[in-house]
């Protein structure tokens, strides 16, 4: 049930984000979700794409430092308190969310969010036990 996320190291300079987007477009890779966490000097760009291998190769060829991380994609009810419910479940089990970000696409009336959680397998089991829909990687890449 893991989803593979690509992380890219970026210096905080104008145009770097656009360059990554252009490289991926050129490699015929579609970006499914994207979030940038940055400081005054550097940023970490997190991406969910339709073809990890192709994306990593294209970025490495252009000299970027790239890594892969396993994350969780879960459906969040699109109503007040929807996200809070998930965080609450994890929090009560003492599981820490390092970061999260939203997916552009919805599934039906639900939003999809990406969570970086540790320990990941324990978190997935816990969410499923609480009737939260966890979406498989293959489905996420094709969304």
């Amino acid at each position, binding site marked *: 049930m893991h989803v593979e*996320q690509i*992380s890219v*190291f*970026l*210096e905080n300079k104008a145009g770097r984000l656009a360059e990554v987007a252009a490289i991926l477009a050129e490699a015929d890779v579609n970006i499914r979700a994207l979030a940038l*966490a*940055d*400081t005054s*000097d*550097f*940023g*970490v760009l*997190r991406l969910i794409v339709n073809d990890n291998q192709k994306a990593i190769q294209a970025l*490495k*060829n252009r*000299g*970027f*430092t*790239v*890594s892969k*991380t396993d994350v969780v994609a879960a459906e969040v009810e699109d109503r007040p308190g929807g996200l809070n419910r998930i965080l609450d479940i994890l929090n009560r089990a003492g599981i820490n969310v*390092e*970061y999260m970000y939203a997916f552009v696409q919805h599934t039906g009336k639900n939003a999809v969010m990406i969570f*970086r959680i540790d320990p990941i397998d324990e978190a997935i089991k816990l969410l499923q036990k609480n009737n939260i829909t966890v979406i498989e990687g293959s489905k996420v890449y094709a969304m």
Partner: protein
Amino acid sequence: MILDIGFETMPREDLEAIVLRRLKATIDRVYANVPFYRKKFEENHITPNDIKSLEDLKQIPFTTKEDLRDNYPFGMFAVPMDNVVRIHASSGTTGKPTVVGYTARDINTWAELMARALAAGGATRGDIIHNAYGYGLFTGGLGTHYGAEKLGASVIPVSGGNTKRQIIIMKDFGPTILTATPSYALYLAEVAEEMGVSFKDLKFKFGIFGAEPWSEKMREEIERKLNLTAVDIYGLSEVMGPGVAIECHEAKKGLHIFEDHFIPEIINPATGEVLPYGETGELVFTTITKEAFPVIRYRTRDITSLNPEPCICGRTLIRMNKVSGRTDDMLIIRGVNVFPSQIESVLMEIDEVEPHYQLVVDRKGKLDTLTVLVEVGERLFSDEVKVLQNLERKIAKNIKDYLGVSAKVKLVEPKVIARSQGKAVRVIDNRKI
């Protein structure tokens, strides 16, 4: 393998007798043939007859890089140009380059010493040597080339640059020995990885790296990434070129100096006082067999120490430790002396830090600021910003703790730091003083 058993394992007493005889002959020749030396001797009321023992060398004043520049281009040559068969020059970052010359016999001596060095580093006549030192005015390329031929090995004169082609040659020709600057060796590893070529599939056994200071941690990284045994070679054009000193691959602990041709001393760079074995200071060389370009007590500006202990390889030649810095690389930042090599040591102590760094010094108002750029490679990278921020803080704290100077640490993308002809540019000083 010890190529010249006679000289490389000679009892110290016998060696010292030969060294003294050769030193006296050299002093006689420079006094007679080089006006610069005659003048220096006369100013200090010294004649060649005053040099009766190796101890007496201390009486003679030092020769500096400025002295060589003042006599640009051929003023320090001790033979007529008719006898000079080769000229090399070292790039002058400021002002004129220093020009050196060789007679046919000098070229032969150099080839022999370089052959000895290659043999100490693991090469034999059956090896194929991929020589990625630059060919040209720089002594690295041709010096290594002649030594490889003298040894009887097969040399690929690939020189520096065109790195992708080098990787293809490595795959197709199957060289077994790599000679290059250590930073270029790491760059070769990067490019090979990008091209999907693994050094595990190549045939390298030994790498002989020099022409810039490098650390033990960098050796570990090179050995791991290039899948070979890495040894350090030392030389400078003013003294001869590569092959002045070499690590034996058996010990990999200090570089044996070919003392039958060069006399080493370590001095306090501030006072000129000769320091005892084991103490760290500036390395000084006197050549005792060179014909065209002898140097007497030449200050190399390299920082190291000498180790007289016997070596497991059987050589009786003294060892110099790895060069840890240069006297002229020393930066003074807010009154603190900083050597780039110290920053490198700090970085190497932090696990997994890539050895690609650069120091940038600026002056804002009256205050000097030091920024340390560190390239983020795959091993260092994390998808969590706080991990990277903690790394920046840890590096800055260690620099402050060990060097006593505050630095801003900035993580940068790979290959942001300029590499000039395979040599990483370690210091950018933007201060207008």
